[in-house]
């Protein structure tokens, strides 16, 4: 009887652990291997952005702001539920649930829980504007070498 109990228990443990491993590896299939790092974005010559306005770059969902001192880039994705922001005269507004941000990307009203992220801006060796969405910077940090 003792041997039977031992075999019974061993079989159960084996079956259970096989099941757990199978379930975990099955579950893993839902998460493809995508590089977590966000790719840098090349935007072309800085002169193409009009001065003193937010220019919306729709394929990357961000705004580029250029003034006489330099260039800054801010996300156009609302921190609330991911709608695309619209730029207004003094900031940004979300059409989905009415969150408002000032031109520094700080939340003024509405349900947005966080301020907008500003991205690091650089210049490539051939003079194009480079934006790195993986690297956030302070709102007033500009790329000045234009």
């Amino acid at each position, binding site marked *: 009887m003792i041997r039977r109990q031992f075999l019974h228990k061993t079989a159960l443990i084996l079956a259970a652990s096989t099941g757990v491993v199978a379930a975990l590896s099955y579950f893993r299939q839902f998460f493809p291997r995508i590089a977590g790092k966000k790719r840098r974005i090349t935007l072309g010559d800085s002169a193409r952005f009009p001065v003193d306005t937010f220019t919306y770059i729709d394929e990357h969902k961000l705004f580029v702001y250029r003034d006489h001192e330099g260039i800054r880039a801010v996300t156009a994705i609302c921190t609330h*539920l*991911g709608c*695309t922001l619209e730029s207004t005269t003094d900031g940004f507004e979300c059409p989905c649930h009415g969150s408002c941000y000032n031109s520094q990307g700080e939340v003024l009203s509405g349900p947005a829980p*966080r301020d907008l992220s500003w991205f690091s801006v650089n210049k490539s060796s051939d003079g194009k504007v480079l934006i790195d969405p993986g690297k956030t910077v302070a709102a007033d940090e500009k790329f000045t070498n234009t």
Partner: protein
Amino acid sequence: MSAKEQDIERSTADRTGDPDRKRRAGIITRNFFLHIHATRVHVHSMKPTYTFGLGIILGFLFLIMVFTGLILIIYYTPSVEAAYRSVKDIVYLVPGGRIIRNMHRWASQGMVIVVFLHLLRVFYTGSYLGKRSLNWVIGVALMVIVLLSNFSGYLLPWDQLAYWAVTIGSNIAASARELTDLIGITSFFDPGGFLKKMLIGGESVGQPALSRFFALHVILLPLSIIVLMAIHFWRIRKDGGLSRPVRYLKDRGTENKLLAWPVLMWTELALLLGVVAVVLLVAIFADAPLLEQANPAHPDNPAKSPWYFLGIQELVSYSAFAGGLLIPVLYLVFLFSIPYKDREDEYVGQWFSGNEGKKLVLWSAGAALLAVVLQLFVLIRFGWLKDWIPGISQWFVLLINPATITAGLFILAAEMVKRRKKSSRMGALVLFTCSFVALVVFTVVGIWFRGPNWEFFWSAAQWPVQ
């Protein structure tokens, strides 16, 4: 007589010995599909004003979904490039394709409406009582899956409506981030992001999301509905037929029971024809919406989810975490737990548990309406915390808003009634009624009174021209 025939003979034997009755009972015993009913059904279960046939209407609507879905799946292409075109093709090139797509859409909306009516019927007749708790839980699970099926189907046409509704939906799934951000642990513990990634396979809605929703919509969810529906029906039989009032509970044999064949079966066939006719008529005269192709760069303004989620979208406009996750999860926990918290079986099968319950339901509905409308009035007229105290901590926004206050008030009221009346059923009546009224009010506001930038408007005619 063979052993099999003897078996049938025994199970269909009728006390009157009437050969015709024996034959009618035998028809059901011998047929797998007719087993949906017992050979004899209690008269009380057949009262139209007891069930309104809602459960069986849901079954019929699901049949329509399967049959129309089969046509749609033949022509539909689940790819970002081709999906929108293929839906256009279904509408304009496939013979009768417009009607089929419309039927699919309107039957699905019908399912959402009827599933809520069915929930109301079962709750208010106390039909989760008397050992029917498991079937109640299966029913609530079915309701959730019906909503998910609807939502997953919403993305497939890949139009503006689809794209933005699912963008919002997937970010609601990620709304646990609002909490983890506040605690400051998102970088190493991010259940919201995990759930979102599992749902749409990335950071934003694209091909992976479309493929996943397609798989959910045509395989996983319908299959789950079929399995759970089978168990749901089987449990009705195991639980001794539909619920009925205490005075009928002693009818265990053939007392007060009628043979199901043929009249009940014919009535239900007529109901099936009626349901198909109604859906067909609606499909002929009303077209399912199809906006322009999805444009990930620009949302429509306002961007609204499907109407049955607009109550949640209204809550989400206060706080993503509270409105999108906390309150809906609490509501589901409440629904699932009802039969385990309330076991007063004497109220089974009785609309509103008698006169006392009826009064309580009316009072609760009125009070809930007042409480919710009052809060909405303050919110819309005077703003909320962020407008009063700029820079207030997000903790307060998350914890103190019309969604959480409403939930807190209702739970308190239900607990008080439960104590005072010393009855868990009365407490359940209060909480269920209040939360349902709130759900309706928030949904109505989301559907008709919210315009561009989610601002309040009395009617869409007042929306600013863009």
